[in-house]
């Protein structure tokens, strides 16, 4: 049972890991993108639309090309979340709109966008239940390593995940490395800390902000896709994604803006999120209290970090501040 708990915790955590890795990159450029829940939602529904179209073009689902069945939803998801990132960047960086307002607007927009197209697809299928099932596509997305089943609990804990899950972890490590050990990372951190300094040093502030926000959005969007295609077995139902976007943002704070910490953090959050299923004999209202745990832990971390006042553990200094070179 412990092995299956860990497995579910990891699967629950992977969307959060995508979301928080994306948000960390974004925040390192000084952009506080509160639109991440919306971006992940759009990422999910875009993938679903792509997969739906592709599945619908076949009478017999067995004729589907496995490669295209994965690639089409993936590209749709990347495109959808990229557009969201571009909208955010254009509004906050080019037009210098307030970041918080823009982010919250994108979250509302993204959720509405997802529910609208989700509802439309459900209507097209004339389904009795309010959801669409893309089990053929999902089957390709959730393919696990072939030898996992033979390794007992080791296989279940370490090798029973799909390619996107491993990609999320590798990506988080890679982003950690880039931020810490490369010139690109140094420049990006400088932009988020002090854009005027970065600008005076000859770094292209606007370009960095755009790139970080868009790449961050694409990564976060993949979290939405993973949730639908793997965690939910290809079943899209409106509002099914729930609060995971906000959890991803909480995870950024929990991980102290370090992607490698958010790997462990995401599994912890995932575990806390589902732990109520593994405690026998509790009623629904108690379950809700357990679902609160990730947020409680985040508050606790904030309290501890604020008390220690270590500069390295603070958010980027210029987070949420728009930059204009000739400002006096």
């Amino acid at each position, binding site marked *: 049972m412990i092995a299956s708990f860990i497995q579910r915790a990891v699967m629950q955590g992977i969307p959060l890991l995508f979301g928080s890795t994306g948000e960390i990159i974004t925040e390192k450029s000084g952009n506080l993108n509160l639109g991440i829940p919306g971006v992940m939602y759009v990422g999910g529904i875009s993938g679903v639309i792509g997969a739906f179209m592709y599945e619908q073009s076949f009478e017999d689902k067995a004729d589907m090309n496995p490669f295209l069945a994965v690639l089409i939803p993936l590209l749709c998801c990347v495109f959808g979340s990229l557009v969201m990132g571009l909208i955010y960047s254009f509004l906050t960086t080019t037009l210098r709109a307030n970041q918080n307002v823009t982010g919250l607007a994108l979250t509302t927009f993204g959720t509405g966008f997802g529910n609208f197209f989700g509802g439309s697809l459900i209507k097209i299928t004339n389904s009795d239940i309010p959801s669409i099932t893309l089990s053929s596509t999902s089957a390709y997305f959730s393919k696990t390593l072939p030898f996992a089943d033979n390794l007992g609990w080791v296989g279940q804990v370490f090798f029973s995940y799909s390619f996107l899950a491993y990609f999320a972890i590798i990506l988080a490590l890679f982003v950690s490395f880039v931020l810490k*050990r*490369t*010139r690109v990372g*140094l*420049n990006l*951190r*400088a932009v988020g*800390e*002090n854009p*005027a*300094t*970065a*600008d*005076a*040093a*000859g*770094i292209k502030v606007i370009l960095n902000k755009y790139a970080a926000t868009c790449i961050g959005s694409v990564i976060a969007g993949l979290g939405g896709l993973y949730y639908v295609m793997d965690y939910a077995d290809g079943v899209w139902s409106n509002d099914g994604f729930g609060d995971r976007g906000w959890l991803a943002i909480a995870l950024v704070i929990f991980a102290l803006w370090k992607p490698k910490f958010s790997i462990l953090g995401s599994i912890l959050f995932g575990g806390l999120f589902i732990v109520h299923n593994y405690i026998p004999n509790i009623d629904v209202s108690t379950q809700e209290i357990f679902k609160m745990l990730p947020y409680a832990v985040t508050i606790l971390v904030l309290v501890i970090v604020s008390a220690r006042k270590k*500069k*390295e553990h*603070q958010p980027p*200094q210029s987070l949420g501040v728009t930059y204009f*070179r*000739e400002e*006096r």
Partner: protein
Amino acid sequence: MTNNTAIELRNLTKTFGKVVANKNISLSVNKGEILSVLGENGSGKTTLMNMIAGIYFPDEGQIFVDGKEVSITSPKHAYDLKIGMIHQHFKLVDIFNAVENIVLGIDEGSYNLKAATAKIKETCDKYGFEIDFSKKIYEMSVSEKQTVEIVKVLYRGADILILDEPTAVLTPQEIDKLFNVLRKMRDDGKAIIIITHKLYEVLEISDRIAVLRKGEYIGTVNTADANESMLTEMMVGEKISLNIQRSEPVNPTERLTVKNVNCYNRDGAKILDNISFSAYSGEILGIAGISGSGQRELLEAIAGLQKIHDGDIVYNNPKTGKSDNLRDKTPMQIRELGVRLSFVPEDRLGMGLVGNMDITDNMMLRSYRKGHSMFLKRKEPKDLAEKIIKDLQVVTPDTKTPVRRLSGGNVQKVLVGREIASSPTVLMAAYPVRGLDINSSYTIYNLLNGQKEKGVAVIFVGEDLDVLIELCDRILVISGGKVTGILDGRTAKKEEIGLLMTKKTNGDGGER
């Protein structure tokens, strides 16, 4: 133009909205030379340098580097032209260490901090710098941070160095050290531009001196031919005759006595050093000093906004005849005691008014405690708003226009009008005419004079020495948090004030 010219500026002009920051400025710097750019605050020194460093783009004019005309579009472009600027407010990332800050933005093949450290050490050894590479910037002292800034610029191979007020934050010993380094760099063939308003430093370090006044270029002199009084005159200009009616103080009595007041800022540096003076009813006491010498803190200390370390501020209440010590009282307590101080903060929109609220609402900020109903009475503040608009000729569509949309002068009138409406006994005004045109300025001066005639003790912090001399009965000069002199406004000479303003005091405000 000889081959020896490193950089030449021709007719540079830069405006921000309606404010002309630089107007037709032309000057040049040779290789192996230190040029001082001298000017009062707001004379456009920093703006000019920012145009060379690619932060601002000039509206008009040409820049020549090594005899070729260039158009500097970005800081990176400036670096490519071997121009490096050390900004007054350091451009360093706090949570990075020295090496990370120095290599920031340079593209030199592989990213190898160890190799970079070795190279930086070479540069340091050449000029005699010391940097602790294990420290993060936020752990460094001001002087250490400045060293990192200079090394950063040198590491990038700059041949033209611009230093914006590098000595403002240093101790005298650190200044000596900095000057030695600068001389070494000059001997190395680099062109150095140093901005400062401290005359004795200018005379000590530079080869030539260019003077700016109110955004205009006044002239360049060789340091060998210059002396302090001549430079002061160039800086502050010829006496312009102003026509401010100055009446004799009627029956002056001591209203406010400041005794040996000391204050420290958050970093523990002394900002007010043993300040003592008296303000009398029916007179205008002017405060002159270079910006940041402690004027703001002094007013804030009197208003109860700045914690006083030791010393007393005694207020003689004209109604009760009693004396009260304002020290360690909150602004509200000061009001409740019947002590009325009206304060026009330097940052008029930041501290004085709420930009998004209309004139009536801003009036209410001062009167909301009056009355006992839970609902606000809008009639009186609205009448007051209308009276101010009429009396001070505020240009606004109506009382409902957000203050932020008014022009600077009108905002100022609203603020001063409100403060005067509370019929104060002591009126403090810091830079009340900053950014105003002549007519608006005169309206404000007349208002202050009117208050003086009503027997109010007026304290006026100003920038323009001509105005101080014309308007004030007495002028207190402050330098580095110390009072360096109290002069009679009727007999004071501008040069005299200028010298007192730049008078070197022990510690110079930077010592801890």
